[in-house]
């Protein structure tokens, strides 16, 4: 499962924009992955400038 390390995340929203499944959202100015929609493609992991998303 892919989750986001909120301490690292800068909330730039790049992963939200690029997620092919629209599984990532901004909620209360935090980035969250909806695990039900996530296809585990890991684009968010690759694209993040600060490596905030990780595979748990």
């Amino acid at each position: 499962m892919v989750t986001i390390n909120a301490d690292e995340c800068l909330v730039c929203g790049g992963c939200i924009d690029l997620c092919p499944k629209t599984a990532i959202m901004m909620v209360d100015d935090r980035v969250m992955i909806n695990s039900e929609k996530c296809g585990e493609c890991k684009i968010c992991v690759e694209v993040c400038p600060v490596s905030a998303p990780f595979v748990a």
Partner: protein
Amino acid sequence: MVTKYDVVIVGGGPAGLIAARAACEEGLRVALIERKKDIPKIHRTCGGAINVNESSFGEFVWYDEEKGEFVFKNTGFTIRYDGPSQDVFGFHIYSPNGSRLEFGNFPELRKNAKKNRLCMAISKEKLLKTLLEESERLGVSIFPNENVCSVAKNSTKVVVECEDGSTFKGPFAIAADGINSRIARVLKLNRERSFFGTTRDISLEIEGTECPDPDGFLFMFTPRGVFSMIPMAEKNCYLVSSSTNRKDIIPLELINYFMREDPTFSQWYRDSKVLQHRSACVVTLMSPLEKPFKDNVLFIGDACWRREISNLGALCTGWKAGKSIANALKEGKPNEKGVEDYLNWYQEHYYGPHGKRKQTGRNFLKYLAPQDIDYLVEMPKRKFDQTMDIFKVVNSIGRTYGDLMRRVYEERPDIMDKLIKIRENMEEDMKEQIKWGFRTV
């Protein structure tokens, strides 16, 4: 919840907010949807500057000190701004040993800063706050903390749906959702755009630098990549950024190397204080939209272009689109014909002059040694005309080095060979850059 509006705007950056204001001023019922909860707060890297005193995309902006407002003369609107600012005079491009190409003689220009500045670094947060307050006062319905998941046109309306089930409808919508526009993707507009890769950027904010002339947009070529430094609004504060299009590079490590270890440029940051706020940005590099319109959705700002149109382009396209929609509805033309003036204006000032400009795959750092770049940068031995127009910079570099090639050929045939190779391998190198990227179709 289903609510009807005249226009539904997705995105609360400078483009979306000014579009909301412009449409609302004409009496339209406007909804503005933004995924951030605190709309003016900046998380995504932005130069945060407004070009002044120089023509850019058909606009010529000047800052009225007395009234505290930016005047967008040609497009025809003003924006109140009385926050902090630093003056910017032009570009400097540095080679690895600290030699530079100067677009403008900063010490000379500084003597009459208000007349000679070509850009003002401003607080984007303050600008967005002003625009948001004005929009709210006029009666724009603002919906923060909403993630748009679909945009589609039925027989008469554009329907914008959010993740939480909220639905917004109107005869027109505006896509102001930024550089990686989800709406452009949903409406399948990216299929006709050329793709050039994806960059991942990170920026640190610093206070204090020993850089000799920091009041410009500075680009530094180093063996580890190209870095930039630009003034921020607050006195003595600067934004230092790194950018990479490779997946195997961590931007944060790159920028730490630049500021702490680079033999030339780390000197600038010996006593700098690194501030807490950091920002980042992922940029899908694509050709601009030829027509910023589909299914009654108008595209503005970075959603239809690339980031070089900056805040000025975001504000002008936003204002123009808002007014154009108001006009279309007044004339009873809720269709493409109704917003023709926006589309023609975009064609005249944006797509026509700049839209077909190709991104080239020239990868200087892959072929040239640091000393080769130093040699090339030291060649012209003159200052270039002051400009903040990146297209003008590229053109004058092209012209200058075109004239210098004979000398390179005679003095340094080894560098000449490398330059030829860069040209020959341009397509291959572009393919590699594309392979590293994430295409959004």
